[in-house]
């Protein structure tokens, strides 16, 4: 299967197979006017299978969101058909308004103006907890 190469834009590569749609949703890519391609289950020598997202516009993407969903992913910035930056992603220490706390007893469930903030409490097991009620993100 062929997807055209992009001239100016962003390629998110090495996404764990199955995480592509989650990243698409959390990055809000559905709201963009430009072409966006999600390629699922691409054969990879390193990973067996992987997902790739190609965005045909030079827009800023949230590294925090990518780091939260899939810290093994890489972000490639393409300008004038040339790879100008290749960036490995790390898990962010804090997530602000990326995900919402699902605990109905949390203060964020009733105070509309509060930022939903999650902090990384266990890097090894990739555990984020709400800073208000300590509920685990899932």
């Amino acid at each position: 299967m062929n997807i055209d190469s992009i001239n100016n834009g962003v390629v998110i590569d090495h996404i764990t197979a199955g995480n592509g749609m989650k990243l698409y949703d959390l990055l809000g890519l559905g709201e963009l006017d430009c072409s966006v391609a999600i390629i699922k289950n691409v054969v990879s020598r390193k990973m067996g299978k992987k997902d790739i997202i190609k965005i045909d516009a030079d827009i800023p993407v949230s590294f925090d969101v990518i780091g939260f969903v899939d810290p093994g992913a890489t972000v490639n910035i393409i300008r004038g058909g040339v790879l100008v930056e290749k960036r490995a992603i790390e898990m962010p220490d804090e997530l602000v308004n990326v995900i919402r706390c699902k605990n109905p007893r949390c203060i964020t469930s009733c105070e509309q103006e509060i930022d939903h903030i999650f902090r990384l409490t266990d890097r090894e097991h990739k555990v984020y907890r709400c800073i208000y009620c300590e509920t685990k993100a899932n």
Partner: protein
Amino acid sequence: MKSLIDILDLTTGELDELIACAEDIIANPDKYAEICRGKKLATLFFEPSTRTRMSFEAAMYELGGNVISVTGAASSSAAKGESVADTAKTVSCYTDIIAIRHPKEGAAYVTAKNASVPVINAGDGGHCHPTQTLADLLTIWREKGRFTNLTIGVCGDLKFGRTVHSLINAMSRYEGNRFVLISPEELKVPSYVKKDVLQQKGIPYVQTTDLESVMPELDILYMTRVQRERVFNEEDYLRLKDSYILTVDKLKDAKQDLAILHPLPRVNEISVAVDDDPRACYFKQVLNGKYMRMALILKLLKEAGKIK
């Protein structure tokens, strides 16, 4: 600006300092009788409370200060839809320190982020209740003379019991302690307390549903009630509420120097006959709570530069 939201906001050194201060207040109450003259404590209680609110108010009066109160969301601007953040900013204009109880978890943290005066968490839903833990710690200190090498049994509602979570957090910082977690299956300690606190620190613990079988091992027995307001339905509450009832007979194999604690209110989980047993410490715990709240108010007002 330092506030107390979670018991772990205090280092063990700061806990030692608060305990030393409380002991000095007990020994020399006159020395502290005017120390907060002209200062005001706001008690914002958006959830029912008898002991905690009265304890804070008694503490401030015994330090020579004054108290202004909100009791119940219905009698405050919260009923008009005011946010916790705005309430914090407003109340900061009237007072020197705030104690807040709120049914939502994290409400005290939001208050502290928005207030310009120190904030004390007097209970935020099922999350934290650090000043109860201060009362528990002073009681343990006064009864056992140490925080180390203790077998601590916690019994009852370990799922929603915020005092239990805070106590486990606090006592996990000391050497040689071991926990015995006694609860019905439905009310076991949440996994984050087990994984993030006990397992991560390598602290030995056992889980059981049988109180009597573990009684002889315990140095401290911390009883709790099944909280009607936290269990999701009445049917579950009625089924679980009588899971553990401590009686004089059940104490026959307990150590002679066992300390029985309970954050109160008691419903029926400790028989009234146990009150006469010298090992019953729960009413001493109430008094200790007032002394620790006095020590805490002093510490926070000093750090905020409001008293010398």
